């Protein structure tokens, strides 16, 4: 965190000054470890064992927060007899379809409730947000599974999307056993499931000595309960794995058992990446989401507005109002053209017909189906896994638009990319027409950033963009304007073409422009997002939204960000002038709430668990919820309230159910729906690992996303012959001095001089084993490619004892490419495409590799070297693709 979120880290230092203890768990000793009280090095890719053992410790040592667990979680809920877990099936769950590489969740249900799987994307950004507590959730109609079964294509496309972590249906209420004794109640299932995760296993798999594990267990449990809370902070060290989402799930289970969710100083904090990456999921840049986590309609099952609403809304909780949110969105986009008669233009929305994710798109580029590509602030030639595959795919496009500050590798690969050097490509053979359009930076435009706390903060333009640079808002607006002008000019849009054009012609596309270059006024865009009523008056809360077309709102969760016509995100009251929750700094969705599910900070009777940890509480006198933060609960609902039979929507939420976005109001220790790779976390080895899975016969995540492609060959793992060819574990990461694929740092002298060369970090022991010299060169090899790096030999990388032998890990910052003031090989040349099945994120945190002294060969010899390795390891197109 000190490395990548130094400004946010000031608060960790502040907490430290106040006596907080900081534990850092990382394969490498970093700037964070330097100021941590306890540094716990482990093998990359083994955290589920470490966290699972903590869960086991908490359960067996009875360290969990009983009152919290019994009242606020689904620990007491009873599962059906159909459920079978890894203990029974050697590492997989009941319902595995080995042909389709998919799970059928039917057997993961609660008993007594016909559980429906859910929809709407609970997916975090391709970022650190996986499983961030409190992503809004919604439920879906019973036919989801049937529909999906009937259309495996759609189901494959839907994946996490059509089966997000929706709450189990609120009724009929599932059977429970508050004594937690029933053998099939979640609590008992959890105990059995994690029984294998012992300190000895931690030592064997993670390389963490038992005394260090015990120390962590002590610190965490002693610091949790009524009086104290513990927070977990993670980012992509946890997410970029084929089991990334399950990493976060394990932490969620631990935090829920310890009562650290919905309380001050608790939680699981996903540190985000690009500025406003949270915003890019709230108002998504993802193919399967609409604003506010409304699902993008499927070609099947969402034919019209009614089927969509019927399919996607929930009986219980706030998702019962899906129609209001959806209709308001359609009104915001198509205004007067959207009428009850034409289904509010619902028909204009595109439909999901398959997986349209980034990496999937590479395939259709190669096929020639995808002809044109926009890169708005992305440098896949360096930043995306398996860079060679990325570049070769882009070389197949007809046209490519790159909007960036500088000439990034993705804009120049056609003339100086590595494939030109290796002779795989020749500039004259590349038909791709590349348009480079300079982009304005954040200082040259106004707008909002949404951070990991869901806090919207406004930034104001400082200067007009230089030269031809323009903001992305300018580009998008004026591009749309010109297209609409052309369409308007076109012979009246009757007939097929006319209908095709209608969605664009009918758009509300009239933003006031300001400044030298006619930039659309960002504040006007925020106004549309916030929404207005029939008379155009700004709305102040999403509770005002209606499904009859009388309200328009561009993103229901952002409703209120411009309440009273005032830009609430531009508030800057200093901390010293307000209380410690700082409600007047920026604006947090929903309803300027700073801690989600904060009703859990009070006991079932509505009183704070302790004075130290008071956040919100029930005021019996005024019969209302109150506190420092905006209560995340129905304002007047007393703790004593119990929903009558058949209650729906928010009425179905009991006075003791803090998790109001979950249809059953409970925190889920066991997830009956929502995760495509299991209701509970299981340790699987990474796609490529020098070690066998010690827990089960099942080596890897059985439903991980595999991309069979000649440029994406996988390596043998564990005990398979050939695995020994790649004996080391490489992990990739960031340096404070650089930013991601380097467009924002490698080209700047003041940053380039601070980390002036691509290097690999190795231990003295590995240096000796492979004759590497400090400041010399090393070549790192995988089945995809080989890269060269300067060598930093340092004690910060420590060899570990894993499964009885010494494991060496290699550290690779991934910021370098061929352009800029400091150049070097991109680490992503080494990476494969095997993805987490829930969020399609690449596994770049744990790769098996070989390391050799000296520089890599140039030209065609490079491909030769890699082919040689593949042959020695006996790699075929089938290697590593087993379920």
């Amino acid at each position, binding site marked *: 965190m*000190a490395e990548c979120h130094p400004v946010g880290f000031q608060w960790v230092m502040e907490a430290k*000054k106040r006596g907080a203890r900081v534990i850092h768990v990382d394969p490498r000793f970093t700037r964070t470890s330097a100021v941590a*009280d306890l540094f716990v090095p482990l093998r990359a890719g083994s955290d589920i064992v470490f966290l699972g053992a903590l869960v086991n410790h908490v359960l067996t040592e009875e360290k969990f927060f009983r009152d919290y667990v019994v009242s606020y979680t689904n620990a007491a809920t009873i599962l059906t007899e159909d459920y079978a877990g890894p203990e029974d099936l050697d590492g997989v769950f009941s319902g595995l379809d080995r042909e389709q590489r998919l799970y059928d969740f039917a057997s993961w249900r609660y008993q007594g409730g016909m559980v429906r799987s859910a929809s709407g994307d609970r997916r975090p950004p391709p970022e650190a947000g996986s499983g961030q507590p409190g992503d809004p959730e919604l439920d879906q109609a019973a036919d989801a599974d049937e529909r999906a079964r009937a259309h495996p294509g759609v189901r494959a496309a839907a994946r996490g999307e059509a089966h997000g972590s929706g709450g189990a249906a609120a009724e009929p209420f599932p059977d429970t056993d508050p004594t937690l004794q029933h053998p099939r109640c979640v609590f008992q299932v959890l105990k059995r499931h994690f029984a294998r995760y012992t300190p000895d296993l931690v030592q064997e798999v993670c390389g963490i000595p038992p005394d260090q594990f015990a120390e962590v267990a002590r610190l965490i449990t002693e610091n949790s309960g009524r009086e104290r809370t513990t927070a977990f902070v993670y980012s992509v060290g946890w997410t970029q794995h084929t089991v990334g989402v399950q990493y976060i799930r394990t932490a969620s289970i631990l935090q829920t058992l310890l009562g650290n969710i919905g309380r001050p*100083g608790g939680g699981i904090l996903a540190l985000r990446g690009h500025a406003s990456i949270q915003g890019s999921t709230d108002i998504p840049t993802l193919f399967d989401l609409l604003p506010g986590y409304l699902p993008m309609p499927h070609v099947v099952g969402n034919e019209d507005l009614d089927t969509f609403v019927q399919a996607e809304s929930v009986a219980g909780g706030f998702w019962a109002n899906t129609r209001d949110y959806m209709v308001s969105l359609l009104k915001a986009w198509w205004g007067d053209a959207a009428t009850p008669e034409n289904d509010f233009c619902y028909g204009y929305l595109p439909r999901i017909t398959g997986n349209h994710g980034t990496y999937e798109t590479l395939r259709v580029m190669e096929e020639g189906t995808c002809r044109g590509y926009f890169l708005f602030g992305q440098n896949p030639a360096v930043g995306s896994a398996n860079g060679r595959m990325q570049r070769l795919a882009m070389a197949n496009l007809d046209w490519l638009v790159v909007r960036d500050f500088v000439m990034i590798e993705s804009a120049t690969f056609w003339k100086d990319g590595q494939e030109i050097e290796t002779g795989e490509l020749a500039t004259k053979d590349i038909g791709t027409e590349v348009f480079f359009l300079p982009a304005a930076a954040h200082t040259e435009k106004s707008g909002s950033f949404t951070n990991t706390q869901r806090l919207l903060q406004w930034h104001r333009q400082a200067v007009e963009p230089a030269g031809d640079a323009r903001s992305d808002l300018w580009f998008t607006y004026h591009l749309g304007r010109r297209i609409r002008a052309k369409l308007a000019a076109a012979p009246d849009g009757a007939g097929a073409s006319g209908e095709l054009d209608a969605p664009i012609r009918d758009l509300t596309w009239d933003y006031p422009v300001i400044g030298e270059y006619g930039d659309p006024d960002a504040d006007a865009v925020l106004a549309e997002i916030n929404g207005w009523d029939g008379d155009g008056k700004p709305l102040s809360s999403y509770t005002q939204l209606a499904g009859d077309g009388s309200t328009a709102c561009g993103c229901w969760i952002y409703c209120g960000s411009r309440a009273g016509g005032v830009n609430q995100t531009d508030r800057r009251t200093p901390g010293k002038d307000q209380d*410690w929750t700082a409600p007047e700094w920026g604006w947090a969705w929903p309803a300027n709430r700073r801690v989600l599910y904060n009703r859990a900070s009070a006991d079932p009777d509505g009183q704070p668990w302790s004075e130290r940890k008071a956040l919100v509480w029930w005021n019996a006198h005024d019969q209302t919820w109150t506190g420092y933060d905006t209560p995340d609960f129905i304002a007047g609902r007393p703790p004593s309230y119990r929903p009558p039979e058949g209650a729906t929507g928010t009425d179905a939420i009991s006075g003791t159910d803090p998790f109001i976005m979950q249809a059953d109001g409970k925190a889920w220790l066991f997830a009956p729906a929502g995760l495509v790779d299991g209701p509970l976390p299981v340790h699987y080895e990474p796609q490529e690992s020098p070690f066998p899975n010690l827990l089960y016969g099942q080596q890897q995540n059985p439903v991980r996303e595999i991309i069979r492609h000649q440029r994406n060959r996988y390596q043998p793992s564990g005990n398979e012959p050939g695995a020994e060819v790649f004996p080391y574990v490489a992990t990739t990461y960031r340096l404070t001095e650089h930013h991601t694929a380097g467009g924002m740092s490698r080209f700047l002298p003041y940053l380039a*001089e601070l980390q*002036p060369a691509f290097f690999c970090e190795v231990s003295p022991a590995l240096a000796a084993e492979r004759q590497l010299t400090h400041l010399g060169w090393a070549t790192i090899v995988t089945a995809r490619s080989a890269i060269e790096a300067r060598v930093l030999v340092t004690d*910060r990388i420590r060899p570990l004892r894993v499964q009885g032998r010494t494991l060496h890990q290699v550290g690779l910052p991934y910021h370098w490419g061929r352009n800029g003031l400091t150049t070097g090989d991109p680490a992503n040349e080494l990476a494969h495409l095997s993805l987490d099945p829930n969020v399609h994120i690449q596994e770049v945190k744990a790769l098996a590799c070989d390391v050799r002294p000296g520089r890599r060969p140039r030209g065609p010899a490079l491909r030769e070297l890699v082919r040689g390795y593949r042959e020695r390891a006996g790699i075929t197109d089938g290697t590593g693709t087993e379920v």
Partner: protein
Amino acid sequence: MTDRMGFFTDTSLCIGCKACEVACKTWNEVPEDGIELSGMSYDNTVGLGASTWRHVAFIEQPAPSARVQIPAVTPARAAAPAQAPAQAAAPAQAAADSMRWLMSSDVCKHCTEAACLDVCPTGALMRTEFGTVVVQDDICNGCGYCVAACPFGVIERRETDGGAYKCTLCYDRLGDGLTPACAKACPTESIQFGPLDELRERARGRVTELQQAGETKARLYLDDPEDGIGGGGAFFLLLDEPEVYGLPPDPVVTTRDLPRMWKHVALAAIGLAGAVLAATRRSRP
């Protein structure tokens, strides 16, 4: 003259983010200083000089035997979690075979007795109303005397234009009542800017806390007006001996010895004159 302003750099709070280095260069338009891998841990600017006025040192070393708990500097806010948990017992075994990574942001010391200023023959180096030491670039003739005189190797002549350069303690910003760029950018308050007396007060409290917490090697550096440079306008809290950070253990301003030097120069001159007279005593035959 207003209060004497200065820096207290508390290296126990430094996270090595180098924001101070970048902020300094950006504000003062200091040129890039060479894009070259040094192999000195994460330090690639290597030291203070004409084109690096803030420099962050990185030292990888074995951890001292007992892990320590960095204690509270400020009393906890009412609303926020109060005292540390009862069992403040530090995780002891963590120490075994472990290491530590010291980081420290260095800068011109703005010495009370500044050698550079004393020896400057043009008056280009001056003492400002804030008690800081600043080069007036329009007067400096590049004689380089300050370079040889500085006991910390801070000031340096820039080859491109021959002038001597160093930290100005953001004289322009101070004039406008602003915090120096480096201190402003520091996220962890490792660089603290303010009236020197207050800073010294705060620093003494901090170092006692650290020592009580077991940081036996924690010490203040250049905080003492009695030391060889009359105390630094910029002083430091270090977790190891100064030389480990590339700082001189006991710097003394050279001009303290100047009177004695002049005395010997005078005696030598007289001696020379005497020798000549003696040699020419006897007239030519």
